[in-house]
């Protein structure tokens, strides 16, 4: 019976005809005349049409046919009201495009797997020790994994570095010879790298371009194969171009790929010698007949040695699934969900608006609906028809929303790059953000959900009619529908107020941060950091810069201010634990950055040379550690990380736990001076209890430089060219102005303010139009009443007041609710965000948002109020309601 074909109506009719014929024959046999028999048979059967109808309805395809019918009807109906369709589609499209943008980004980073063969069998290999961990390996470790053919179908290694090509910074993935063979990514032109390209160090100078590099740098030159490319002054030959969808195995797209054997030739460390650096990222393709648990278990039996915190330690390799560029951790989700919520709220506001318009339309159509009900349509059928209309609108909106989303994404990427400091912006790469089937499916899903949100209520409302009411032209539901519309407007006002509060708080914090006193002068200061752990490099760079006539001054530091959180340690004090931070600086540091020494003295040249155990403490540090006491001459034990090795987060945590004196890195310093407070880490956290310790250019702690040119506006580029004299590879130094670093630090806040403002402006516009719609509708229903009022002596002013009162009443509930929700949201956020220079609960922001909402309400009521004031009572009374 499963393969039974659906019966046709004809087949069924034939059966009925046969039945009637058989019955008639029986009656003829009983002695009736053929005509009488036929008539009798028909009579016994009853209504053939009715039977056929029942058969027709029993077929399951009926709903589909009705759907097509509804769709056709809806199309006809919508074509007749173009203005309604256009406004509704536009409103919904705005809301839908916003969530689509969020989804497209999520999709590109978290959902879409790498464009390689069987991405779900890829695992990245990382290592874990007691209190440390990492994701990079030595060449010999990689060889160890490579020999596990019993677990893996292939194991690949990559190390990523930046190189310069004709003044352009490019990110290069140096990959093992089997990289592309194992991944099986598509090539657009030529061929990808093969094992034969990585025979021996420096063996084959070949390079593979990403599609983006090919189009952007080489103008999609069709004759690119075999062309020379200069990387760090070395000649390499292009052998192919990858397809646009493959950009590398993480969220930072590569510009080029070269054989691992070329890494040292291009200025990298020797990967294969006796002192193998830990710099290879390893990815393995699990064999199909091995489960991840089996592979993990087998790897656990084979620990290998590596240096952790300066000591050899046995560590275990761990496998982590790696099919997509990013993974959404629980923490990530917690951070991102308020952002998602904001976007979804705007969609909700848009749906409320559309719902409002649909309600008005349904009310206008109550006569039509009444007639349909009275000639026998059942309520479910009409609701289905109205929902079909809604679905049609939603689908149109989803299409428009997709187009708008594509536009918004481009705009967003453009703004992202523009808001970043130019030096950083040059390095920004996005994974391909194009729309695939997932995005389309999402848009369709959103359209269906939106249909329920904006079309279901109006449909239920519209069909709640009694026949008499409907035919009289007096919808009994009118009163209830106006309550419904007020609720929708209340919701909209709430949403926009909450978004406004968030946005205004962000903007106000943004401006406050911009004007925060850093405590030092960033003007014209350029930071020079090195990417190699090589003190000699710093010294050479120092000598080159100091001797250059264009350079005014050079200072030496262990780390420059604003470049992330400075290293720190806990200090046990009677009243609790104080976190202290430190940096090593040369004696000129304070004068260079114009940080005044408020008490005591700075460092002498001798102290700097010897890196003596003396310290200058920040003013807030002094008052935290020795309140009401003279800090000069006091001694204190500080935990300092050993030279030449940066502690991992796990190690820092480990050190932080053993407070004070037990630490193996502790040194005792004597305080010689107090400097005024300055921001050393993040501008949001403000000034900390900071210790400055002495160093000099040839000191063991020298790791970074800061320079100021003799003429104002000496550029990053000119410093870079000077540094070429210290090292031929320009990528070993990171040259960035402090102002750019500051821009980078404030970037997240500025980006968030921009997005917040954008969302709240849209939400505000939606609630203005929603409120306007409700007012116009309500007062069009009340024209007669107003006419009577005016005839009885009410002035135009009084009528206008009536409108404003009504609108204020509508908005007041939403405003109260919005303030309440806004406050609880901020209250919650204030427990998450505890930053010195960021005020989360900002009364000013609440006040500004309130004023903005009030202004919006006034704006929405202005038109309807004017119109109501101009009602002519005499014509109103004559008109037949």
């Amino acid at each position, binding site marked *: 019976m499963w393969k039974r074909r659906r019966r046709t109506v004809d087949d069924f009719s034939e059966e009925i005809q*046969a039945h009637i014929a*058989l019955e008639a024959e029986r009656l003829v046999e009983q002695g009736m005349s053929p005509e009488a028999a036929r008539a009798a048979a028909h009579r*016994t059967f009853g209504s053939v049409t009715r039977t056929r109808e029942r058969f027709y309805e029993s077929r399951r395809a009926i709903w589909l046919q009705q759907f097509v019918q509804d769709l056709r009807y809806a199309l006809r109906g919508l074509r007749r009201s173009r203005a309604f369709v256009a406004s509704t589609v536009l409103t919904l499209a705005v809301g839908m495009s916003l969530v689509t943008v969020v989804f497209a980004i999520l999709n590109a980073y978290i959902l879409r797997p790498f464009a390689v063969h069987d991405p779900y069998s890829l695992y990245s290999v990382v290592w874990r020790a007691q209190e440390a961990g990492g994701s990079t390996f030595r060449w010999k470790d990689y060889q160890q994994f490579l020999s596990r053919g019993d677990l893996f179908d292939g194991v690949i290694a990559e190390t990523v570095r930046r190189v310069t090509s004709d003044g352009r910074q490019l990110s290069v993935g140096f990959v093992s010879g089997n990289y592309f063979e194992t991944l099986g990514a598509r090539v657009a032109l030529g061929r990808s790298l093969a094992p034969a390209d990585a025979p021996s160090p420096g063996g084959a100078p070949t390079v593979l371009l990403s599609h983006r590099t090919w189009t952007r740098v080489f103008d999609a030159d069709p004759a690119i194969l075999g062309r020379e490319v200069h990387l760090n002054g070395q000649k390499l030959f292009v052998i192919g171009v990858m397809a646009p969808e493959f950009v590398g195995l993480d969220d930072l797209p590569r510009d080029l790929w070269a054989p691992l054997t070329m890494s040292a030739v291009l200025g990298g460390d020797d990967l294969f010698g006796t002192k193998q650096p830990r710099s290879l990222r390893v990815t393995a393709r699990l064999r199909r007949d091995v489960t991840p648990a089996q592979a993990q278990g087998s790897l656990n039996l084979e620990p290998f040695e590596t240096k952790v915190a300066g000591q050899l330690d046995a560590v275990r390799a761990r496998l982590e699934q790696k099919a997509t560029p990013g993974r959404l951790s629980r923490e990530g989700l917690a951070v991102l969900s308020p952002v998602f919520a904001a976007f979804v709220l705007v969609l909700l506001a848009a749906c409320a608006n559309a719902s409002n318009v649909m309600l008005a339309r349904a009310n206008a159509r109550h006569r039509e609906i009444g007639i349909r009900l009275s000639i026998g349509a059942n309520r479910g059928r009409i609701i289905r028809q109205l929902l079909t209309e809604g679905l049609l609108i939603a689908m149109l909106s989803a299409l428009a929303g997709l187009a708008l989303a594509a536009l918004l994404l481009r705009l967003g990427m453009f703004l992202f790059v523009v808001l970043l400091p130019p030096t950083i912006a040059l390095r920004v790469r996005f994974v391909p953000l194009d729309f695939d089937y997932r995005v389309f499916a999402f848009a369709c899903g959103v359209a269906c959900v939106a249909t329920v949100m904006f079309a279901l209520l109006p449909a239920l409302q519209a069909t709640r009619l009694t026949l008499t009411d409907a035919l009289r032209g007096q919808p009994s539901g009118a009163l209830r529908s106006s309550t419904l519309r007020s609720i929708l407007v209340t919701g909209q006002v709430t949403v926009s107020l909450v978004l406004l509060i968030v946005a205004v708080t962000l903007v106000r914090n943004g401006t406050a941060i911009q004007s925060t006193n850093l405590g030092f002068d960033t003007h014209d200061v350029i930071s020079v950091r090195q990417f190699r752990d090589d003190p000699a490099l710093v010294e050479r760079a120092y000598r080159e810069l100091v001797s250059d006539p264009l350079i005014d001054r050079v200072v030496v530091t262990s780390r420059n201010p604003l470049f992330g959180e400075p290293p720190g340690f806990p200090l046990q004090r009677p009243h609790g634990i104080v976190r202290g931070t430190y940096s090593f600086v040369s004696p000129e540091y304070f004068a260079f950055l114009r940080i005044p020494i408020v008490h005591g003295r700075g460092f002498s040249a001798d102290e700097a040379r010897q890196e003596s155990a003396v310290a200058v403490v920040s003013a807030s540090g002094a008052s935290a550690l020795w309140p009401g006491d003279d800090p000069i001459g006091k001694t204190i034990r500080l935990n300092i990380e050993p030279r030449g090795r940066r502690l991992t987060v796990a190690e820092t945590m480990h050190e932080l736990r053993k407070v004070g004196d037990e630490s193996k890195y502790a040194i005792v310093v004597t305080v010689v001076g107090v400097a005024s407070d300055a921001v050393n880490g993040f501008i949001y956290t403000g000034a900390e209890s900071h210790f400055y310790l002495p160093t000099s250019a040839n000191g063991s702690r020298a790791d970074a430089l800061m320079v100021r040119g003799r003429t104002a506006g000496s550029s990053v580029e000119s410093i870079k060219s000077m540094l070429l004299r210290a090292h031929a590879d320009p990528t070993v130094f990171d040259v960035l102005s402090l102002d750019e670093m500051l821009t980078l630090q404030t970037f997240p806040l500025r980006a968030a303010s921009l997005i917040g403002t954008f969302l709240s402006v849209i939400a505000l516009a939606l609630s203005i139009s929603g409120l306007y719609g409700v007012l116009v509708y309500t007062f069009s229903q009340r024209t007669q009443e107003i006419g009577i009022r005016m005839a009885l002596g009410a002035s135009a002013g009084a009528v206008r007041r009536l409108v404003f009162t009504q609108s204020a009443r509508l908005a007041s509930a939403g405003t109260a609710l919005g303030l309440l929700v806004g406050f609880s949201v901020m209250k919650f956020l204030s427990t998450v965000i505890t930053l010195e220079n960021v005020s989360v609960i900002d009364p000013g922001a609440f006040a500004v948002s309130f004023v903005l909402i009030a202004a919006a309400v006034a704006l929405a009521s202005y038109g309807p109020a004017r119109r109501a004031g101009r009602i002519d009572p005499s014509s109103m009374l004559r008109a037949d309601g």
Partner: protein
Amino acid sequence: MSPRRRESDAVALLQGTLDLLILRTLLFGPQHGQGIARSIEQQADDTLLVDHGSLYPALQRLEARGWIEAEWGTSDNNRRARFYTLTKRGRKQLVAETRQWRRLAAAIGRILGPEEA
């Protein structure tokens, strides 16, 4: 037997009993729609009135549930007709429904008490 007579004496079928009677009729072998209707009426000595119009939706329903199967064939008097056959599942259903109906009838009989003359 004229249609007139049927209307006066016959009893309309109880809701839901038509399915049972159809299954029962088909127990004796394949039959077409008119034959089923006739057979029910005859076996009930023309006391039961089968609404021919509602017979077909019922057949359709039983077919959809897989209790009966249908095939076009030729009737005794050489007419093309659609013949229905009881399936294995239909047989089981018939047994179950018959038992249920007997229990129901017996219960109602007990409540109504002995028949009054």
